[in-house]
């Protein structure tokens, strides 16, 4: 898994730190959703990579920073959210199998925010958003709204999308057919940005980020990006 390290502070831009996780590499080829490096486990989140991916990108983004207390808000955004958990549960049900009790609390994307809140002592507002179009811009707009409120001083913005499996592939195909410009990434992607001032998206994320799908503009805001195997910098 390629990632950006936790970055140096760039208060002049409003971006305090950032991290990006993408799973491309030789060992991931042909394995939808597979990563070059296994994600550190997140206790009890065993069915899907969604929550471990969120937790890991947040850990890298917040490493060494004290964000505890009510002055930190969190905004999590995803178009399809945790399709893996939803698909496993629905497939089991359709096949007449008994539900895995662990799916109970994994059924909503806000559960992982509880794990993040506990790990980092964050007690500010936490929200989970989805939109058909323009989700990265809407996440930053949401951060701007939150930064205008007392006592918020910083907002952790997280964008995450799993490698689309067949149902999610169909959703993205139907989105494209309906005129949406939202495109799926070609693998699991997670971006985390810690902001202390309003931030705008870059006008063009650069052609090297096209494989990150609709999350490319958000990833382009990461202060440092890691080289991708065989294709230069992302």
């Amino acid at each position, binding site marked *: 898994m390629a990632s950006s390290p936790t970055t140096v502070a760039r208060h002049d831009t409003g971006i305090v730190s950032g991290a990006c996780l993408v799973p491309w590499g030789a060992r991931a080829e042909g394995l939808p959703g597979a990563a070059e490096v296994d994600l550190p486990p997140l206790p009890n989140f065993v069915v899907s990579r969604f929550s471990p991916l969120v937790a890991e990108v947040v850990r890298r983004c917040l490493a060494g920073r004290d964000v*505890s207390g*009510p002055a930190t808000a969190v905004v999590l955004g995803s178009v*399809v959210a945790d399709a893996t958990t939803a698909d496993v549960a629905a497939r089991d049900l*359709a096949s007449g199998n008994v539900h895995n009790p662990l*799916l109970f609390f994994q059924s909503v994307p*806000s559960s992982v925010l509880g794990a993040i809140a506990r790990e980092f002592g964050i007690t500010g*507002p936490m929200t989970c958003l989805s*939109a058909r179009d323009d989700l990265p811009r809407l996440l930053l707009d949401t951060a701007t709204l939150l930064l205008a409120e007392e006592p918020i001083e910083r907002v952790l913005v997280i964008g995450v999308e799993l490698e689309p499996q067949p149902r999610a592939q169909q959703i993205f195909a*139907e989105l494209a057919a309906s005129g949406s410009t939202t495109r799926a990434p070609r693998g699991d992607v997670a971006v985390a940005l810690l902001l202390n001032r309003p931030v705008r998206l870059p006008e063009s994320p650069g052609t090297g980020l096209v494989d990150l799908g609709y999350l490319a503009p958000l990833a382009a805001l990461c202060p440092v990006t890691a080289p991708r195997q065989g294709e230069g910098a992302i």
Partner: protein
Amino acid sequence: MTDHVVITGYGVFTAFGYGADALRRGVFAGRHRFGPVTRFDTTGFRGTIAATHPADPDVGELRQYPVLRRCAEEALAMAGLAEAPAAPVLVGTQGDHTVLSRWWRAVVAEEPPEAALPGLAAHLPHQLGEDLRLGHPRLAFQNACVASADAVMYGCRLIHSGHTEVAVCGGVYLVDQEFFAKFDSGRAFARDGRVKPFDRSRSGLLLGDGAGVVVLESARHAAARGATPLAAITGWALAADAYHVVRPHPEGAGLAAAISQALGRAGIAPEAIGYVNAHGTGTPANDPAETAALRRALGAHATAVPVSSTKGSTGHMLEASGVVELIITMLALRDGQLPPTVGLVEPDPRCDLDYIPGEARAARPRRALTVNAGFGGLNSALVVEVGEEGIGDGE
């Protein structure tokens, strides 16, 4: 009420049906609609009970989008807004999981699946915006049981900050097999088929159908077009427990913080609150934690203020809970009737507040709180206020 975010219209649906009168005949009359689920096969589940509305014989199976759309149309009509082309559309929903179920049933049966996009959470606000020619952004809020309260707060923020004059905010959840199975496997359902908030013998929650939409406006905009505000939302806050993935903080730390921040935003002391619509799920963990939160945030006033959970009547409407309970709270203020906690007979000693058992109580407070909590340890609080002119003229 000036310089506030006001509610000028609403539409609501529960297992009792559409509209305020259905709530008055059900929630405010101390009734419940729990019964065996017939919407889908419950064979193999431990639980079989939920609060569901029967299918409409004219249109067949109840589906999320048509229910949400009707609520939105009723809200806009009540607000007197023939069009709202700049109004953001903000909806609490996890998406229509019946679409997901059908997709997988087709795949398992080796048949071609139907369209998958209508099941996407973000599809609901988008389609609502397209069909009713509303504005942007069009966002789905997926933070569990605070989702539609969060959608309302987002609308409040957009209006308060001057980004928009009107916002259409709501939420929807209809009892479906997917979430029923998850809650069943998590052993979250009441074992005796009744929701008993704050009761000594409570054993869990039961799901219920719910949808609601409110039209929010700046007070200035409503006044300029001659619209009469139904109520104002003067305070709002979200706060996290930082305690556990799903269990609430046992001392209600996050919920107390949300309440205190909402009161602070409204610029009022706890004593100004005359009614609290509690989250009150009837689970062993929630109710004492919520009681602790109310004591922590309201101080000595916690034992004086009437509190009720309406989930003993409606069931737990998940993402729709926040907005439906906001509408119930607004009705309580406007009608001068505080809804009872249906199912409460013998209070848990740890739940020792005035939880309005039995039947509705006549009272005419001007301000109320409505609170919710959700997976992830997320907590919401909204302060609702009616003006002197708004009391006793329930529409």
